[in-house]
């Protein structure tokens, strides 16, 4: 099994319309999974991470039901079958 990454609809223009991405490459952390995605969908990761590789302030990344901000950030461990969800924060005006 692989790691799944659920993408918000606002970002599907950068995934060729795909809402759930499957990462088959070996990865042990959230950062690994996003790096694997970046190789084929760099425009997507540009909108999730800043150019310094940090999760954007108003984007939340969950592993299961928990935000990685309350885990180990991009170093949060993943394993086969993990579901990563990218969600725009409740913010704006």
């Amino acid at each position, binding site marked *: 099994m692989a790691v799944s990454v659920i993408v918000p609809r606002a*970002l599907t223009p950068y995934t060729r319309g795909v809402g759930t991405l499957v990462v088959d490459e070996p990865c042990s952390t959230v950062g690994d999974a996003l790096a694997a995605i970046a190789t084929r969908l760099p*425009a997507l990761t*540009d*909108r*999730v991470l800043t*150019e310094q590789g940090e999760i*954007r302030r108003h984007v939340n990344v969950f592993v299961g039901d928990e935000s990685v901000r309350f885990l180990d950030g991009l170093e949060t461990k993943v394993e086969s079958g993990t579901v990563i969800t990218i969600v725009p*924060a409740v913010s704006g005006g």
Partner: protein
Amino acid sequence: MLLVGTTKGAFFFTSDAKRKKWKMDGPHFPGESVYSVAYDSRGGRTRTFMGTQSSHFGGTIRVSDDFGKSWVGPERQAVRFPEGSGLSLAGVWQIMPGRPDEPDVVRCGVEPACLFESRDGGESWEPVKGLLEHEHRPRWQPGGGGLCLHTIVMDPKDRKRMGIAISTAGFYRTDDGGKSWRPRNDGVRAVFLPNKYPEFGQCVHKVVNHPAKPERLFLQNHWGLYRSDDWGDSWQDIANGVPSDFGFAMVTNPNDADTVYIIPLQSDQFRIVPEAKLRVYRTRDAGASWEPLASGLPQENAFECVLRDGMAADALDPAGIYFGTRGGKLYGSADDGDSWTEIADALPPICCVKAAVVER
């Protein structure tokens, strides 16, 4: 044509040369804030630039060669700070096509404060190292809008000379094409510092010059209205007869180097036009005197504010002068500012306005 950026997207307004009736097109990029717009007609282009900013997913510069019918990427964030700089793009505050003799050069000012340069018409961008690595950077402080490089002033006679303004760092000038930058703030007040006249650290809101007389600069400060006749080496107070010397917007008349427009605000604590009367102030003598322009503008209960890039001029004669308010109203004058009409009355808060004359 007017390009209008708002906190919720951008709009095109078009008219004929009479500039009486306007047609609106938009919003483009609904939901995203657009703090910078530009039109580039050099080399036969019809290129529109917009600096768009999603509050969630970051910012980029979008480009259209067909007046917004279609927009091309870049899908990647093209304006990006180098890895290891510790800086990440927060927004694009100014986009400025280069001089006519450098038709592929475009520059942009961003937050956190830096100047970027494109040498391929806006497809790829590189930071100007002289500012990125400036020794003053650790001491620059963000203003209310963030630490932004919001103004670029060029010298059409000298390719190596250029000025920029940063809130809050002041006005800087390069004389060697961007390799080195010196603060030029002698005489400009910083009311919010113990030392009122520091070498740098002023909160400059806008600087403008006229291509026929580029060495003469006009500066709207965070309190203070100034002129320099020597490319910023020294500044003189020109707040002669204005109701307040606090404000943001400032624009020159393309047909007259002595004519400048501003929109004063009550104070830094109450950023509303004085007495809630919406008035543009015009000087025709390079700041020796200012006159209010109010014909057609609301003179009671106008609790309006115009931001630093919220005013623009077109190059027709008489010049068209335009401004947009945070209340979402867009006004225009087709007679050098003598009289005004409302072009739109319920846009989202207006961040920036640029005008261009386009033959179609």
